[in-house]
């Protein structure tokens, strides 16, 4: 089971500013472990975000996004108390969603 994302979503003027830290190994499939065995590729391929059900971002990722990924974006039309939901899906078929109230 994956660890929760750290999501900061706050109203800044007319916009909502979102900053996310995701817990994910983002293995490229090229690294070797201490015993010399190749660590299999395992990385996030898709990220989506929505505000009260309205899509606000979609992203396609490859293995060269850094480990424990950081993502920041901004959108209009969000208000304090609205629900911001972020979802990622990875190459192992795992998925994770976390939701916060916009502050």
């Amino acid at each position, binding site marked *: 089971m994956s660890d929760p994302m750290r999501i900061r979503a706050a109203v800044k003027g007319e916009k909502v500013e979102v900053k996310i830290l995701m817990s994910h190994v983002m293995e*490229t499939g090229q690294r070797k472990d201490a015993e010399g065995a190749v660590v299999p590729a395992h990385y996030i*391929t898709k990220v989506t975000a929505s505000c009260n059900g309205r899509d606000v*971002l979609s992203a396609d990722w490859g293995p060269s*996004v850094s480990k424990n*990924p950081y*993502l920041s974006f901004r959108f209009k039309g969000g208000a304090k108390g609205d629900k911001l939901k972020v979802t990622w899906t990875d190459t192992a078929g795992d998925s994770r969603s976390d939701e916060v109230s916009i502050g």
Partner: protein
Amino acid sequence: MMLARRRFLQRLGHTGLAALTITSGLLPRVVRAADTRPAFAAEAIADALKALGIANPTKSDAIRFKAPDIAENGAAVPVEVESTLPGTREILLLVEKNPHVMSASFSFPDGTDAYVATRVKVAESSLIHAVVKTDAGAFYTDRLVKVTLGGCGG
């Protein structure tokens, strides 16, 4: 053992979903749902752009691209892209010297700023391209990021 492996291979051959790594004498290690997106398999910028259906992006200074001149560690290089080009739909990040150049693409629905900040891996000192898809075509800018080998190498 050989027969079981062949049957296993035959079964998987039709799905086209999995990639196999076989080492002699061992069971094949399966990478579930291997990445089949052509753009992400590209090893050169031109091939990645072609796979994305982008032809000859125009250099533009309406793209604000912030990246450090020197990255203390290439495992995480902070980048920030903001496009002031009207009708911006997508921002893409490509790292020229990476084994697979395509790093990420971001799509912005109406109401979302054409802005993104993230951190990418840069294998060695390289140009990073920020490509922007708009209603009026594709544009780009680039920055050179030098990657250092720090301290005692670790």
